[in-house]
């Protein structure tokens, strides 16, 4: 411990590669711990980041974090792209009006409530209504954005599907736009109220800037989407597809940074274009990125945690932050609930959508940074307004990033959408061999005559049958292919028995083994089925597991869950 302290005290800082490696490994390990106590993994990533970052051990310094900044944009871009992929035109057609109304209501709800309560807290401290309201409306505008990253990560982790999930995707993706507009208006009004902040052209100019940012981002994304689609249409090579997609994303995100426009909206537009131009081909494109993305997400959240620095906060600042968090949460829930009522949205959206909108991240911090520059030199309550806004946003981001994911989990659980968006691989992980084996599969005693065997085979449709000895232990297997040879001589049926016809089992599996292990074993060995034994030390035969039957049951289960999700949304 003293050595560690000496190292840290001595100004030891990790270089970039070890930071990336350490963040990935410890982030994932931390997430596992949180998963054990049933917390979404994203909370674990952020806390590991906090521990090793600027507020904790200080193993990652500001210079390293700054050097990794482009990476954060890249991660956000990938998240934007994946969200875009959820926005197929059917979603717009089905829910377009409802979602746009809810989007405005939850954003404006949070804006109004946070503006009012933070103005109130500041008024108590300063007694200056104009200055308090100026800071209040800027905080209100910043708070309206919902960060997609942590929210989407929870949806992904719990494999959710259904109308609530769709609503969350649409709204977290699109309310950045609203936040930009609100921010443009609010800062202009605030600048006028804090007259010394200097006027940058008023509301019209601010709105113009916001519109420019949205428009350019969307155009950039759409153009890149059309180009990428044209490229992907030609090739079928998956690895090249990944390279093209990542290349396009990096380029678009880089251009966004260069043009100072929204880094999430452009990749999102790119995703929307791809999914709508060629839905079938795109599913594999998004699948490729999905498999490539996990380490990027982990690193992004760990770095987000490491970035936070909250020190030297007075009591009133804490009160302001508390008012902000409570006001924002209430505003979003209220706005979402009321608008869902008005638009007659499904009950799960009305009841639980608000809970899914607490997350705050990149956009809020970006806007806070912009506000710091805009209001440099203006102080309220002996504190520079920029610093105050930045600290509030930092602190509240930390709080809602820790509180938000469990709320999302709760909401999707209550809505019954967990585990409905499963793939065969996911299901396989969740089953054991015992769940999928045929415990009543026909078996033969070693002395069963061929005539009996043929009769049984004609009554059942298995590809292979187990033969057991007198103790019910597996003695061998008889496959249909093996039996073909015995058909050649009709005389054999009277006197050959299972013992003569069986072969030793090439492989077996224990009933408690994961289903995935059985499937891998069958695929690797080219087997249609495996005899299932009671346990590692108990060689009794308890059933048979068949590849065909497993894949049939898995497909049925996936279909059932998807139907459940889609029925819930009508």
């Amino acid at each position, binding site marked *: 411990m003293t050595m560690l302290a000496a190292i840290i005290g001595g100004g030891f800082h990790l270089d970039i590669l070890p930071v990336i490696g350490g963040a990935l490994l410890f982030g994932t390990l931390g997430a596992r711990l949180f998963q054990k106590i049933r917390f979404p993994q994203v909370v674990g990533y952020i806390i590991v980041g906090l521990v090793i970052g600027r507020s904790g051990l200080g193993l990652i310094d500001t210079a390293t974090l700054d050097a990794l900044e482009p990476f954060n944009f890249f991660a956000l871009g990938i998240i934007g792209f994946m969200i875009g992929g959820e926005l197929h035109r059917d979603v717009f057609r089905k829910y377009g009006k409802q979602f746009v109304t809810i989007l405005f209501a939850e954003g404006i709800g949070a804006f109004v409530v946070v503006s009012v309560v933070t103005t109130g807290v500041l008024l108590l401290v300063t007694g200056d209504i104009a200055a308090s309201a100026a800071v209040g409306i800027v905080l209100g505008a910043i708070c309206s954005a919902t960060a997609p990253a942590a929210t989407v990560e929870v949806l992904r982790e719990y494999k959710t599907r259904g109308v609530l999930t769709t609503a969350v995707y649409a709204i977290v993706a699109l309310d950045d736009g609203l936040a930009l507009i609100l921010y443009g208006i609010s800062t202009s009004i605030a600048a006028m109220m804090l007259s010394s902040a200097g006027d940058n052209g008023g509301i019209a100019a601010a709105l113009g800037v916001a519109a420019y940012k949205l428009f350019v981002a969307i155009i950039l994304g759409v153009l890149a989407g059309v180009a990428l689609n044209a490229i992907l249409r030609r090739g079928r090579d998956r690895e090249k597809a990944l390279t093209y997609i990542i290349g396009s994303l990096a380029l678009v995100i880089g251009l966004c940074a260069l043009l100072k426009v929204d880094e999430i909206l452009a990749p999102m537009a790119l995703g929307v274009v791809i999914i709508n131009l060629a839905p079938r081909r795109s599913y594999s494109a998004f699948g490729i990125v999905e498999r490539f993305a996990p380490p990027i997400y982990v690193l992004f959240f760990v770095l987000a945690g490491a970035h936070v620095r909250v020190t030297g906060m007075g009591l009133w600042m804490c009160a302001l932050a508390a008012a902000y968090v409570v006001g924002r949460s209430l505003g979003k829930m209220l706005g979402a609930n009321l608008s869902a009522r008005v638009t007659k949205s499904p009950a799960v959206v009305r009841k639980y959508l608000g809970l899914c909108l607490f997350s705050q991240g990149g956009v809020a911090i970006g806007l806070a940074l912009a506000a710091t520059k805009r209001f440099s030199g203006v102080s309220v309550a002996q504190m520079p307004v920029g610093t105050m806004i930045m600290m509030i946003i930092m602190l509240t981001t930390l709080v809602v990033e820790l509180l938000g994911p469990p709320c999302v989990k709760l909401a999707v659980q209550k809505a019954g959408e967990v585990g409905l968006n499963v793939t065969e691989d996911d299901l396989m992980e969740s089953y054991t061999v015992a769940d999928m084996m045929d415990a009543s599969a026909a078996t033969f005693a070693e002395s069963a*005559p061929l005539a009996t065997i043929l009769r049984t085979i004609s009554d059942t449709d298995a590809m292979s049958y187990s033969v057991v000895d007198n103790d019910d232990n597996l003695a061998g297997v008889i496959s249909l292919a*093996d039996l073909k*040879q015995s058909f050649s*001589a009709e*005389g*054999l049926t*009277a*006197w050959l028995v299972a013992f*003569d016809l069986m072969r030793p089992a090439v492989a077996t599996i224990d009933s408690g083994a994961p289903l995935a292990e059985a499937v891998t074993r069958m695929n690797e060995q080219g087997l249609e089925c495996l005899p299932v034994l009671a346990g590692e030390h108990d060689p009794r035969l308890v059933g048979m597991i068949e590849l065909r039957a497993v894949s049939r049951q898995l497909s049925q289960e996936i279909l059932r869950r998807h139907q459940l999700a889609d029925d819930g949304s009508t």
Partner: protein
Amino acid sequence: MLALAEFLTSDRVVLLSATTKAEALEELMDVIVACNGGVDKESLAREIAKREEMMSTGIGNKLAIPHVRMEGIGRATMAVGVSQAGIPDYESLDKQPVHIVIMIAAAKGEHETYIRLLAQVAEALKDADLREEIIQATDPATVHRILTGPQDK
């Protein structure tokens, strides 16, 4: 079609002196052991007995085909025993004495050859005249020629 000559040489044909099933099996096991260095008679006897317990290999029409697959057998081997007097206690499916005993021993991995050989022997000996010719033969070479002759043509 498998050529039976591949699995049967004339020195593996014996005119049985046995009068019981046990003695007959014993005589043929000696032949199998003699031409399969790797197999010990005790395990062969155990495997043969295990199979007989499940169902008698006396398949009727004066014919018995005791058979086994086991470790130690190099490759599929046949041994043929002929008893003019017949073996009454063989527990044949048709409850008649057995006159021709064809023992087949194969290696563990020779599944296909094993089944095909069993099928072919049963098929070849369906012919009642052929069986009679074998039973009436007075020396092993004749039996060998009857069994393998048609295959060699």
